[in-house]
C-alpha cells in the first residue's frame, strides 16, 4: 500500500526539516537552537520520510549509508576537544577564529561550533540507526 498524499508531503517535510535543522544548528550559539535540537529536527524529518516510503526498495540502503554519521559526529566532537590541546590549552578549551569570506563577510569559526556539529551528526546518526534497525526487524524492507 502506498500512501500517496503522505509520500508527497514527506518529500517536502524532509527537505524543509533538514534545511531548518541546519539553520537551527548554526544559529544555536546566540539564539534558541544548537546541535541537539538540530539533530532531532533532521532526525524527525527522516523518520517521517521513512514512515511514508517504508516499502521503497532502496530505503534501507540509503539509511545504511547514513549510519557512519554517528562515528563522524563523535570524531568531530573529540577532534574539537583535541584541537584545544594542540593549541596548548586544555582538552575542550574553546578556540575562536574570525575568517573573512568573499561575498558573505566575516564569520566566526570556533571549536564549540565544530563540537556542536559533532553533536548534530551523532544525534542524526543514532536516530537513523534506530529507525533502520526497527524497520529491518519488522521486515518492512
Amino acid at each position, binding site marked *: 500500500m502506498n500512501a500517496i498524499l503522505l509520500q508527497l508531503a514527506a518529500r517536502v517535510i524532509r527537505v524543509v526539516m533538514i534545511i531548518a535543522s541546519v539553520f537551527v544548528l548554526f544559529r*544555536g*550559539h*546566540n*539564539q*534558541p*537552537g*544548537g*546541535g*541537539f*535540537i538540530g539533530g*532531532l*529536527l533532521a*532526525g*524527525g524529518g527522516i*523518520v517521517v520520510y521513512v*514512515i511514508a516510503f517504508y516499502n521503497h526498495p532502496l530505503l534501507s540502503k540509503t539509511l545504511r549509508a547514513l549510519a557512519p554519521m*554517528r*562515528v563522524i*559526529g*563523535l570524531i568531530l*566532537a*573529540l577532534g574539537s*576537544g583535541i584541537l584545544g*590541546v594542540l593549541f*596548548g*590549552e*586544555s*582538552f*575542550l578549551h*574553546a578556540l*575562536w577564529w574570525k575568517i573573512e569570506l568573499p561575498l558573505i563577510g566575516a564569520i*566566526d569559526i*570556533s571549536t*564549540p*561550533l565544530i*563540537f*556542536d556539529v*559533532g*553533536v548534530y551528526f*551523532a*544525534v542524526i*546518526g*543514532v*536516530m537513523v*540507526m*534506530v*529507525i533502520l*534497525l*526497527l*524497520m*529491518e*526487524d*519488522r521486515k518492512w524492507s
Partner: protein
Amino acid sequence: MILTALLLAFLSALLPFLFSKLEKVQGWLVALIPAILLAAFASLDVLNQSTILESTSWLPELGLNINFYIDGLSSLFIYLVLGMGIFVFAYANGYMKSYSGKSKFYSFLVLFMAAMLGLVSAGNMILLFIFWELTSISSFLLISFFHDKENSRKSALQALLITGVGGLALLGGFVIIGSVVGSYEIQDWIDNAELIRSSGYSTVALILIILGAFTKSAQFPFHFWLPNAMAAPTPVSAYLHSATMVKAGVYLLMRLGPVFGPTDMWQFTLPLFGSITFLLGAFFATVQTDLKRIFAYTTVSSLGALVMLIGIDTDLSILAALMFLLVHSLYKGALFMLAGIIDKRVGTRDIRLLGGLWRKMPVVTVITVLVLTSMAGVPPLIGFLGKEMIYEAKLQVPEAAPYMTTFSVLGNIFMVFVSIYVAYRVFFRTQIQWPKEPTRAGISKVFGPFLLATFSLLFGILPQRYIQPYLQLAIDSVRPEDIKLSIHLWHGFNLVLILSIITVMAGVLLFVFRKKTILLFTWVYESIFSVHFSDKFFKGIDNFMKVNKKKADVVQHGYQRFYLATIFSVAALFLWYIIVQTWGQPSVVDFDSLSWVLAVISAIIVVLSFMSLPSTLRRISVITIIGGVGYGISAIYLMYGAIDLAITQFLVDSLTVVLLVLVLPKLPKLVIYTKTKGAIKDLLIAGAFGSAMGIIAFTAATNPDVDKISEYFKEFSLSVAHGKNIVNVILVDFRGIDTMGEITVLVLASLGIYSLLKIK
C-alpha cells in the same frame, strides 16, 4: 615533541594497511617505524640532560594531564622497546610470510609497541594506567591472532582476565595514593614519598599496586598466563618476553622504588614472591618439552629474579636488576626468534623430536649456543655480568644473605642445566628422523638473532664502553645516592666468582647425569606440582559463572518494570536521606515574575493525564497520554522562557511516541492491576521518588543562601564564551565534557539496540 612522537607512533599503526600491497617487504617497512622513533628519542639526548619533562594539560581540574617524564630509567626502557621492535618487525617479515591477515598483525604489533612506549614515558600515573591497559588489550589481540584455534582464544582470554584484574587493582592503588598526595604526577609522588609512606592507607595502596605489577609481570601465583601466551605468533612472543608487556610490571616497580622501597611490606613481599617465582620458573623450564614453553618458563624465572632484586632495594640490587633486565632482553628476544626458525625449518618445536641439527644448520647452531651461553651466565657474554652482579647484590643483603644467595645459586643451576640440555637435545644429539627434512634458514631471518647475539658478546667484553653510561643514568634516576659505576668483565677472584664456578659446575654435573636428572625432576614435578594452575584457573572461572548465574537471577531477572522499581526505590531512599538530613533550609518564593495562571493550567493538564494512566487499558493510549504529558511540560518550559528546553522536550516526546508506536506489536500485553497490593507498592515508589525530586528542585530554586551556578553562566556566557544562548553555551562549552559523554552514551546505546535486534 614527545606527545607528537607518541601520537605518530599510534597513528602509524594504520601504516601496515598502506603497505599491504608490498607484501614481500612489509615487515621491513614497518621496522622503519621504531627505527625513526628511536632516532627521534635519541635526539632528545638524555645522556646530557638528566630529566626531560613535557606537559600538556588535558583536564587540569581533575589532575589529569598528558605529562611525560623521561629520565635514565625511562630511556633505558625506551631504547629496549624500540630497539627490540626493529628486530622483531624485521624478523616477522620472513616469519609471517605464509600467513594471511599480515597487515592486521603488524598493525596490532605497532599498537603494542606504541602503548609500551607511552607506558614508560608517562609522567602522570593515570596516563601510565591508560597505556598499561592498552598493552593488555593489544597483547590480547596478538595472542589471539590465530583466532580459529580454541587454544589461542583461551590463552588470550586468560592473559586478558589476569592482567585486567591486576589493572583494576593498580588503578585502585593509584587513586588512593593520588588522593593522599593530591596529585597524580610521578614527580610529586617521589617528592612526597615520606608523606605516602606515613599515611595509613599506604599498605592497602601498595598491596593493590603490587597485585597489578605481579599479574603483569607473571609472578607466582599469576605466572601461568605467560607460558600460555606463546600461542601467539613467534615474533610476538619474542617481543612480549623481551621488551614489552611483562617488563611493564618491572618498570612500574622500579619507578615506584623510591616511593615504597623503604617499607617493610615492599622488602618482604617482593623478595618472597620474586624468589618463589624465580625458583619455580627455572625448575618448570627443566621438565618442559616444547622449545617455546621452555623459554617462556625461563622468562618467568627471570622476572622473578628482577622482582626479587627490586624488593631487596639496595644500590647493588637495583643495579643488578637494571643489568639483568638488559641481559635478559637481549638473549630472550634472540632465543624466541631462533625457536621460531627451528620450528619453521624442521616442522616441530618438541625437543624430543629434534636433534642433530648442527650439521643441517650450522649458523643457527652457533648463534643459539652463543645466546644460551649468555642465559647460562658464562663469560665472556653479558649474561655472566648479570649473574655476577646478582650474586654480589645477594651476598650483601642485610639479614637474609644466606637464604637469598642459596635461592639464587639453586635457580641459576637450573638455568645452566636448561641451557646445556636444550643445546644438546636440539643440535648435538644424534637424530635420524625429523618430521620434515631441515632446510637452511635464510640470511634475512638469521640476521636479527645474529646481531642480538653479537651485542650480548660485545657488551659482555666491553661493558664500560657500551652500557655503562646508560646504566649510570638509569641508576641515578632511581637512587638518590651518588653511585659511581665501573663495570668490568673481570671482577677479580672473589666469593662471587667462586659461586659462579659452583653454579656452572653443578649445572654441568646435572647435565652429565641428564637421564637421571630429567627422570627425577619429572617425578618431583608430577608428584608435587600436580596442580595445573592454568586448568584450575579456567575451572574457577566456570564455577564462578555457574554460581553467578544462579545468584544473579535474583537481581538480573529480565523484567524491565522491576528494574525500574529497583532503581527508583533505591534512588528515592538516598534522596530522602539527604532531604531529612538537610531539612529546614530557608526558602524564598518569588511568584511575582511568573505568568503563573498559564503555568497552573499546563500543570493541571500534566497531572490529569497522569491520573488517567492507570485506568487505561490499551498501550497506544498510554503512549499517547505520555506524549501529552511531555507537551504539557514543554508548554511550562515555554512560559518560563526556557525555549531551548521546550523545543527539545517537544521533539523528544514526538519522536518517542513515533518510535514506540513502531515497536508496539512487539510488546507483551499491558499488565492491568488486578491486585491492589501491587498497585499500592508502585504508588508508594512513584510517590516517594517523585516527591523527593520535587522537594529537591524546589529547595534548589528557592534557597537564597546558595551561590547559584546560573549566575556564573549568565556572567560569562557572552563575555568569555561568546554566546548569547546560555543553554547552548553550557552544552558545548562550559559543560562540553558532559555532552561529550552523553553523545558517546547515545552512540553506545544504538550499538545496544543493534545487538538486541540483530543478534538473537
